[in-house]
């Protein structure tokens, strides 16, 4: 999900092969690109420890005066996904199964509309 969100933010074409590549990356933080405003867009995979990562990154950014904005894509999607059991199943399948080929087109469109609602696409904010 964070990788897909980064691709949407950068207005890049998202392929399922990108997910497969990212899956084998040993490091949780990957630099995906630089948006039109010059912000570096990164994907952070932190599993169920998002709160610990979030506190650590915020704390370190205060110590070192870094400008970091964290966007919890899981939380954003969970709070804004369309209602209904089918959508819930799609969301759960995307979140807990790893089958991007199946869920790619469904999910990317949902994610795009959620991110557009929150001004997170095409470098509006970073």
């Amino acid at each position: 999900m964070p990788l897909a969100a980064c691709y949407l933010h950068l207005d890049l074409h998202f392929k399922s092969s990108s997910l497969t590549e990212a899956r084998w990356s040993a490091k949780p933080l990957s630099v995906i690109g630089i948006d039109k405003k010059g912000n570096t867009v990164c994907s952070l995979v932190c599993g169920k420890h998002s709160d610990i990562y979030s506190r650590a990154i915020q704390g370190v950014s205060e110590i070192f005066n870094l400008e970091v904005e964290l966007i919890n894509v899981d939380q954003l999607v969970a709070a804004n996904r369309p209602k209904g059991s089918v959508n819930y199943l799609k969301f759960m399948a995307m979140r807990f199964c790893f089958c991007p080929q199946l869920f790619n087109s469904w999910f990317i469109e949902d994610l795009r509309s959620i991110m557009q609602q929150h001004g997170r696409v095409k470098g509006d904010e970073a």
Partner: protein
Amino acid sequence: MNIVYYCFAGAHASVVASAIHCGLLPTDRTPSADEFLNIPFYDRTLPTLIGRPYLMGCDERQNNVYFMGMWNQREKITSTIQCLLNLAGWKESTYILQDAFPLINFSTKFGGLLSKRYSFTQLGRSMTIWGMQRQYPAFVKLVYNVKNRLE
């Protein structure tokens, strides 16, 4: 320069290491139980705030010394922090991230579990201190090595 000691919960190992670094604990003898309890934050950091860095103080060279807990994600969180700092242009020579967790023994781990998770604070705290006193020379050596890296 900023120095960050980290461990599992940010309540014992990193607190003691950072306190030694700041001169709040002696390096020539093993501190008493009261001295451990007088360190700010010792066994008092909240498990719900794991991940947050706390400032312990400054050393004799005016370096800021912090401690933090990273749960079982120490390797991954340090790699994330290093990557972020690298992106922001901070060179590795301008900060130190030091793991203090490998130094603690079973007594401190078990005491920490009793104190923080099962709320047997008195018993757990005593066990952590007993364990810390046994491992204290190793902590002094760790801080000595970190200070050597600063020179």
